[in-house]
């Protein structure tokens, strides 16, 4: 943040950094092979829906595109709105590669429409050998991933597991360096 921005109090919201999203495509193989983390066959991209006609039409068009390509790839799309007013575009596909591509289609469509800064994050769902939920969250503003492991119970997370995952995945994913930005997402619908 520049001095001018501080003095004038005019801070812009960052747009998304989609380029590093695709690191997950290759990392997923490592997760599967060496860490026994299997894709749950679902991923989601979360954004703030704006109540404007323009935004609605972009989202509708984008959903149609996804459904159209879904006929070929087998990707299914669902939308849900959570209690915080955020919209989840939930993609289901047994082929992990298609999930990453689908997430990118959504973020690209929003960005092309000029609404890139509305994107919150993308979430990839995994299950470990004990069928417990492990999520990798991609923070678009930061262009970085971090693990999120809910530990059951009200708003508890398995921080130890998350830190271990960070060490285990090593350089294969761009990991968020600041631990205080490993924001949890409660009530993930996937």
């Amino acid at each position: 943040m520049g001095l001018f921005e501080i003095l004038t109090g005019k801070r812009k919201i960052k747009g998304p950094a989609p380029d590093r999203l695709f690191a997950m495509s290759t990392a997923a193989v490592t997760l599967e092979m060496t860490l026994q983390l299997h894709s749950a066959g679902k991923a989601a991209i979360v954004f703030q829906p704006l109540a404007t006609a323009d935004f609605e039409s972009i989202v509708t068009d984008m959903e149609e595109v996804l459904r159209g390509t879904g006929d070929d790839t087998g990707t299914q799309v669902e939308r849900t709105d959570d209690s915080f007013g955020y919209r989840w575009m939930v993609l289901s596909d047994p082929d992990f590669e298609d999930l990453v591509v689908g997430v990118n289609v959504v973020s690209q469509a929003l960005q092309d429409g000029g609404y890139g800064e509305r994107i919150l994050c993308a979430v990839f769902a995994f299950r470990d050998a004990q069928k417990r939920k492990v999520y990798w969250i991609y923070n678009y503003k930061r262009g970085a991933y971090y693990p999120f492991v809910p530990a059951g119970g009200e708003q508890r997370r398995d921080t130890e597991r998350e830190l271990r995952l960070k060490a285990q995945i090593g350089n294969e994913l761009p990991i968020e360096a600041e631990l205080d930005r490993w924001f949890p997402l409660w009530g993930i619908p996937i």
Partner: protein
Amino acid sequence: MTQNMPRPTSFGKDPGLQVRMTLTLFLLGAVYVVLVVAMLAAGVNGVTVAVIAGGLALFNLFGSDKLALRAMGAREVTPAEAPELHAMIERLCIQADLPKPKVAVADTRMPNAFALGRSPKNATVCATTGIMEILTPAELEGVMAHELTHVANRDVLVMTLASFFATIAAYIVQFGFFFGGGGSDDDDNPSVMVLFLVSLAVYVVSFFLMQALSRYREFAADRGAALITGRPSALASALQRISSGMHQIPQKDLRAASELQAFYIFPPGAGKSLANIFATHPPMEKRIAALERLEMQLQGTAR
């Protein structure tokens, strides 16, 4: 002058608190000036005074957070204690690309919220139980985004620095009297009284300037909140709801409300707002108008 008050978004008619804070701020500054003048008059050298002034400013930046929180009757809450508030702020932080601040809650029915801290890494945002009760989640989100924008804009730092320079300005005037006008003549040295009056005048002017600066930054925070949430109307609605005195209407069922206020026909404590120039915040109508303009831009209907 010092800026160790929290940055309030004193929405709504909150005259008692507003008067107290304004008075405190004013008196703090006046005391500061008196102190400096007294020290100068007593022959303490200028460098020492500058060091003390700088020290006080540093204390404000680094040490006043806890004091301010305590003064507001607020305490930090864990995610387990306030899960909804924490989760809301976490999402806003992702959106605004900020580290998560500490979250505090003040147990009072007065709807209010404020932010503290010199930098995003050392920030605290606080909401009162009153504001969490009367606002819808989307409106509360707008208010918290407003506070986070204060954090992102480093308003505490800016205001502290601004007040520090105001102090220095007051200083230069004093030195002007000491060394400029008087020279080495013994006869026409200004009295301590004149010095005091001049520095006080400088201080008064800078006080009003700072209030104006503060109002401008409130507009900036409103705008920032609208940008973060994408819902200017939600914040406008929150402002409207608080200012229109709807906070006087209890949300609880009469049978559940044990407080005596529930039985008043005219709720106590509805007062007049202060004159514009004393206000740290722009008038509510202007803020809402600005947010309406943002919503029109968003909808593509702005002229």
